[in-house]
């Protein structure tokens, strides 16, 4: 699949933003005062909104994006839009109350956290629902999106609440959240390794229905040039450096952040340092998400000669 920058930025940044919103709602210790009550929600909401805005760049007709709120009964993409807006509205109310009274209401925070995580779940389901892309069509996809979102939220919230409790629970939680998220991703990668189209019973023979006669090979594409389908779904360039990119993703997304979180935990240092773990984790996730798209194989490629690499 074509790894569109707008969609990569959207899934990673919104995921982190909603993860932080969930942590705020769940009552993670954060600094008090009016400035914090404004800046911290601005950061969380800002990331969530920046991601959502980026996702509209991927649309052919962004001016009609509002129409996407209508089909929540059948469409995961629509559900995602509805839940994202619901979460942001709840978050705005929560933030207003926080700013005015200095109180973080748990009874409002809890549904807020649940809505934020449901939003991430629906984002992942947009991909996981597609039977045409076997790599994505698994419950591990929403699980890994959720685990990464939670890890990002925890690490960032831990860093923001840093000067409150040096060497606090936040560093330990961050360490294990990052570890668990990458364990889930490892399982996802392991499954993806065996989840080829042919493993799911789709081959050029079933695509053409000519398998009863013999082995099928593409002789000629319909037209000499590229087209929307080949560019969007028969993308092959990305897979060339897949293993190198995977190493980079794991180093930046898992290795460094785990080291930093472990250091903060063991040295009982201020969790402010976790901000570096967060930056590295995000960088790793951009690479991970790029691979999520670039490595995925779409059924329509069978009509264009199957995998070329």
């Amino acid at each position, binding site marked *: 699949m074509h790894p569109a920058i707008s969609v990569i930025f959207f899934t990673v940044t919104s995921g982190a933003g909603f993860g932080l919103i969930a942590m705020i709602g769940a009552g993670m210790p954060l600094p008090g005062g009016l400035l914090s009550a404004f800046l911290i929600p601005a950061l969380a909401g800002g990331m969530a909104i920046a991601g959502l805005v980026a996702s509209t760049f991927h649309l052919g007709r962004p001016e009609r994006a509002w129409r996407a709120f209508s089909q929540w009964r059948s469409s995961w993409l629509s559900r995602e*839009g509805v839940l994202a807006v619901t979460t942001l509205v709840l978050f705005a109310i929560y933030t207003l109350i926080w700013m005015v009274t200095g109180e973080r209401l748990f009874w409002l925070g809890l549904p807020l956290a649940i809505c934020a995580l449901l939003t991430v779940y629906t984002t992942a389901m947009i991909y996981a629902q597609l039977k045409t892309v076997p790599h994505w069509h698994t419950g591990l996809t929403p699980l890994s999106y959720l685990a990464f979102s939670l890890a990002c939220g925890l690490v960032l919230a831990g860093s923001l609440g840093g000067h409150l409790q040096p060497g606090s629970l936040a560093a330990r939680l961050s360490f294990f959240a990052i570890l668990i998220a990458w364990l889930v991703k490892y399982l996802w990668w392991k499954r993806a390794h065996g989840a080829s189209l042919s493993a799911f019973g789709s081959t050029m023979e079933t695509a053409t229905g000519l398998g009863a006669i013999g082995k099928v090979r593409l002789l000629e594409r319909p037209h000499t040039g590229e087209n929307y389908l080949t560019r969007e779904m028969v993308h092959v360039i990305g897979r060339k450096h897949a293993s190198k990119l995977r190493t980079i993703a794991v180093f930046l997304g898992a290795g460094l952040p785990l080291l930093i979180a472990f250091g903060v935990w063991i040295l009982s240092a201020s969790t402010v340092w976790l901000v570096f773990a967060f930056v590295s984790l995000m960088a790793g996730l951009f690479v991970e998400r790029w691979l999520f798209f670039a490595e995925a194989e779409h059924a329509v490629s069978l009509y264009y000669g199957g995998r070329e690499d």
Partner: protein
Amino acid sequence: MTSLPETTERALGLVIDLDTCVGCHACVVNCKEWNTGGYGAPLADMNPYGAEPEGAWLNRIHTFEVSPVDAPASIVHFPKSCLHCADAPCVTVCPTGASYKRSEDGIVLVDESMCIGCGLCAWSCPYGAREMDPVENVMKKCTLCVDRIYNDNIPEEDRVPACVRTCPSGARHFGDFSDPQSNVSQLVAERGGFDLMPEMGTAPVNKYLPPRPKAKPECATTTTPASVQAEVGGFLGWLDRALEKLGKD
């Protein structure tokens, strides 16, 4: 609402005969011609006279080579357009309701004024039946020529999809699959019509007819000219033997 209708009154669609298709692309051209002036926005072409022309098409012909174990390979021209699936994933993924399946005849359509061009429907389709228009930035797909088949302003014989009307070898048939007596249902029953990628669970309405088994001439693979010569008699046999005596080439 982009939920699928539970049942459709009719199930209009195409039967494509892979035995008779000669791969002339007339259906592709006529489809483009009709649909660039009919339903919805024109079907754009980008850089049509340049080095890398491309555009949106609702019907494309792929060409495959099929190699049986015990016979020479054969060529199959393979026209592909929307299969108007009974369980169309492109409809349910649509966030805006632009994509829908008609309950009266089962045709899957896109309301282009509602389409936001997110492309998710194209991702959900295993057949590559949907293409984004590069100029309008909305999703285009086969309409089964909905603006022809019910059109009282054109002669009755033209009230079939443009691809069917134009096919010079009669490889495309249009009809109602919900009626077991219809031409298309009969063809499917007689010729063993099949679904593309049935494992995707899309329950396509359009069916394909397999190429008829090719005759397998004995000489095609097993014999060489040298082995036939010994059996030739008469004048040619005499000539062969006479030339043989002049030495081997």
